[in-house]
């Protein structure tokens, strides 16, 4: 998901966003709940295939997967030490268990599979569309409003932050490891909070002036079309496969 809107080109990007969100949520649940290694492995293969077909560029995919895999690497070091089981490697008094490695591998494959599916299905959605999609899927209004307001004002607050940073710089501020620096950053964050609060009050005032009484109205409408049928069929088939592999 990105804040910026890019022109939708691929087949997947033109699928009804509601279908994509539902598919990704159901698949993620099935993957996360699985105990057998084959389930997330199949999903990972599907995710890779999807990445190749959907036109997501490889650098993008790697960039999204990198932070996750750094975390996974840490787990692969820690889990074999903390999971009891048959030792496969002993260094001094440290003993790495086979079960620990298997668990770490399972989690790594699950994580990568889910992130890849998210990337394939939701990367072409901008945040605004996602907000509308969630709203159409009957996600509570408070949550979708929170998302939409965040998207709307993130940029405004970021510019406010940059203006203050610039104001600090032109008066020769250089961050150092000293009290002055900490205090200045404290002021910066404090001012940002105060300004955000004041802005929120002005926004409420503007909304009141236009007769706001607790409701937002959505104008974006999504249409389920014939184009979406093959996508839903493939997603359903994948979901069924995963479920059967786990429980059959």
């Amino acid at each position, binding site marked *: 998901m990105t804040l910026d*809107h890019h022109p939708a080109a691929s087949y997947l990007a033109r699928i009804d966003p509601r279908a994509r969100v539902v598919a990704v949520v159901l698949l993620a649940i099935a993957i996360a709940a699985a105990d057998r290694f084959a389930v997330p492995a199949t999903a990972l293969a599907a995710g890779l295939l999807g990445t190749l077909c959907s036109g997501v560029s490889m650098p993008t995919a790697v960039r999204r997967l990198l932070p996750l895999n750094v975390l996974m690497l840490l787990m692969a070091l820690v889990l074999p030490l903390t999971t009891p089981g048959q030792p496969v490697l002993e260094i001094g008094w440290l003993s790495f268990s086979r079960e620990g490695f298997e668990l770490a591998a399972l989690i790594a494959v699950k994580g990568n599979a889910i992130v890849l599916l998210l990337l394939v299905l939701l990367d072409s959605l*901008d945040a*605004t569309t996602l*907000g*509308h999609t969630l709203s159409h899927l009957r996600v509570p209004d408070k949550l979708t409003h929170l998302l*939409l*307001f965040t*998207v*709307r*004002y993130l*940029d*405004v607050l970021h510019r406010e932050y940059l203006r203050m940073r610039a104001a600090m710089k032109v008066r020769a501020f250089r961050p150092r490891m000293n009290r002055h620096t900490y205090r200045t950053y404290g002021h910066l964050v404090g001012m940002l909070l105060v300004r955000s609060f004041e*802005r929120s009050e*002005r*926004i409420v*005032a*503007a*909304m*009141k*002036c*236009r*007769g*706001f*009484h607790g*409701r*937002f*109205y*959505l*104008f*974006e409408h999504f249409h389920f079309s014939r184009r979406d049928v093959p996508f839903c069929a493939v997603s359903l088939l994948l979901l069924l496969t995963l479920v059967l592999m786990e429980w059959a």
Partner: protein
Amino acid sequence: MSEPLIRFHDVDFSYGPDRPVLKGCDFQLPPHGRVALVGPNGCGKTTLLHLIVGLLRPDAGRIEAFGKVRSAEADFHEVRRRAGLLFQDADDQLFCPTVCEDVAFGPMNLGKTRGESRRIVDETLDALGLAGYQHRITYRLSGGEKRLVALATVLAMQPEVLLLDEPTSGLDDRATDRLAEILAGLPQALIVASHDREFLDRVTTSTVRLEDGKTR
């Protein structure tokens, strides 16, 4: 002579004991009046506009709008419908993701149907030369575009009075020119708070000066 649209009678207002703003302020907006509100920074121009629509309440004095005395929150609901306030910072006014939703927000709150609102959105945007902006994302508009869309959100409520708070701040000459042209062509009574003398001369016909908490 017919009743003024808005009348302040001996209004006091302060932001705390050490920040008095208005002191015994009298003010009138006659029917079809086009009033320039001028005065030094911090003299209370914005405060006066916010008092009219009840975002602030006076400490003393009486505010009349559209022929009635207004004092409680409920009194101002009608005032806000009939007097549209354009905020100084368009980012405060545009909070919906897309232009269409933002402009439709007011009409929908007034109980218009989706179809009616959509028609109002199209007409208002057309009138401001913003046809085709419906699906633009509000936070990615330029400063001038934001100001015009903010004006559209106000006009979509079909107000009888326009209250404009520093409408030209941050606009370049071309955007200012376009705004002046649009405002000069609108039939509504209006109050414009601004420091831009040239702009005020094009849009308004009389001037009220606010100084030391009083109008003169």
